[in-house]
């Protein structure tokens, strides 16, 4: 049930209208950062206040909400946001990617392919991909308006000169529909290919920086690269130790004081789904037998 002390999805109607107008303009100009007047939320910045406001503006009572933090549904951050919307919007919640209609995420794209019936909302800390090159907002605005992205390529090329490869492994910049350079939020570059041609609508909310941007379904998204150094999303040298998946993004976990390590899917729903279907990795126990 919705608790009566709150408006639906917590925010007042005027605030939701303002955010909704910004979302629509973001959708109309893919990859372009649209300013909005971020509201105080009952959680600190860094807890995804931008994503929370976008989610609040999009939710309907019919939604099934999933919230992930670096792929996991059970972190404090994810649990808190899910419970916030269960209380203030009365929506159903789920951990299963395939069952969710709206997924709010911090730093991952789920492994399970998204569908046309889903919206993925990203929590974004720093929305401006040019910020580390140019701290002044009017200047970065001008650079975007003139498609002045040469410095960005220079920075990436310096990586190659120094390390022999582009060292950026997350927050890897992309170009949207051949026009705007966009920060995909701190997802691993492993996830970058999933941004492009995605059947789901992707919305990005930065609370402290007060920006919203969007990728409509089936938008072309290209990771910046060079002819002689094409983009490489990377791939772990391991399979998941619990479910044996060879194509998922893995976290390294220390398992004992002797420095023993294991590699497990960062997407906990994906990993559990595979184990439930009978896939077992190097250190995995059959589903149901694990502690």
């Amino acid at each position, binding site marked *: 049930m919705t608790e009566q002390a709150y408006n639906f999805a917590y925010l007042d109607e005027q605030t939701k209208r303002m955010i909704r107008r910004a979302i629509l*303009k973001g959708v109309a*100009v893919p990859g*372009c950062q649209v*300013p909005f007047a971020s509201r105080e939320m009952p959680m600190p910045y860094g807890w995804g206040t931008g994503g929370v406001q976008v989610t609040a503006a999009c939710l*309907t009572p019919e939604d099934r909400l999933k919230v992930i933090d670096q792929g996991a549904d059970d972190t404090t951050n994810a649990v808190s946001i899910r419970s916030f919307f269960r209380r203030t919007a009365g929506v159903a919640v789920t951990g299963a990617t395939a069952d969710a209609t709206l997924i709010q995420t911090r730093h991952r794209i789920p492994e399970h392919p998204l569908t*046309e019936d889903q919206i993925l909302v990203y929590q974004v800390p720093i929305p401006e991909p040019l910020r580390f090159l140019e701290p002044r907002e009017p200047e970065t605005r001008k650079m975007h308006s003139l498609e002045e992205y040469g410095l960005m390529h220079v920075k990436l090329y310096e990586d190659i000169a120094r390390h022999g490869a582009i060292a950026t492994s997350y927050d890897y910049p992309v170009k949207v529909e051949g*026009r705007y350079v966009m920060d995909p939020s701190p997802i691993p570059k492993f996830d970058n290919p999933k941004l492009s041609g995605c059947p789901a609508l992707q919305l990005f909310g930065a609370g402290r920086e007060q920006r919203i941007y969007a990728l409509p379904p089936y938008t072309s998204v290209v990771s910046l690269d060079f002819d002689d150094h094409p983009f490489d999303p990377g791939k772990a040298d391991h399979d998941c130790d619990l479910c044996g998946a060879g194509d998922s993004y893995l976290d390294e976990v220390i398992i004992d004081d002797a420095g023993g390590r294991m590699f497990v899917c960062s997407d906990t729903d994906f990993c559990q789904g595979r184990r439930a279907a009978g896939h077992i990795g190097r250190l995995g126990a059959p589903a149901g037998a694990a502690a």
Partner: protein
Amino acid sequence: MANPLTAETLGGGFDDAPIQSARAFRAALDAMARPGRIHVIAGARPPAPLSAAAGTLLLTLADGTTPVHLAGDIDCDALRGWITFHTGAPLVPAEAAVFAVGRWTDLAPAHRFAIGTPEYPDRAATLIVEMPVLEAEGPVLAGPGIRDRARLTLPDPEAFRANHALFPLGFDTFLTCGNRVAGLPRSTRVEDF
């Protein structure tokens, strides 16, 4: 001047604004994100001749911060009163509008509307065009939100082609008919007609 506080003016709004506007926004969002798809959008019952879809879009998106332009027969006492009462939006000429509502022939020439600035392309008008028919047929559309190709009834394909040529500037459009809505963002290419 007509009595501003008629039942027609005071009625026809949302009975449960938070829920109805949430559902209406999702329809509008999906329409704008997937050009060519036609969605039902309802909740408002505006005075004639405004459609339920156009009225619902206004109640969902317009307020005292968003000047609205009413074109042609939409610009009548009943609707001026209804929109002012329910949204608080100031009614303005085309050039100053954040939202503009009317039939295409009354909204034209479309180059009067705000197309945003190079630094802030979002500061562009949204047109709500009342259509006599709205079907997934006619000119071929391509671009973001469209997997392959889509078709949609357009009032003036050449005008939307010219608008797309301004990208990333340009106005964005909702097409409305009865209780149905489709979206046509500036990013959409009108391929042949």
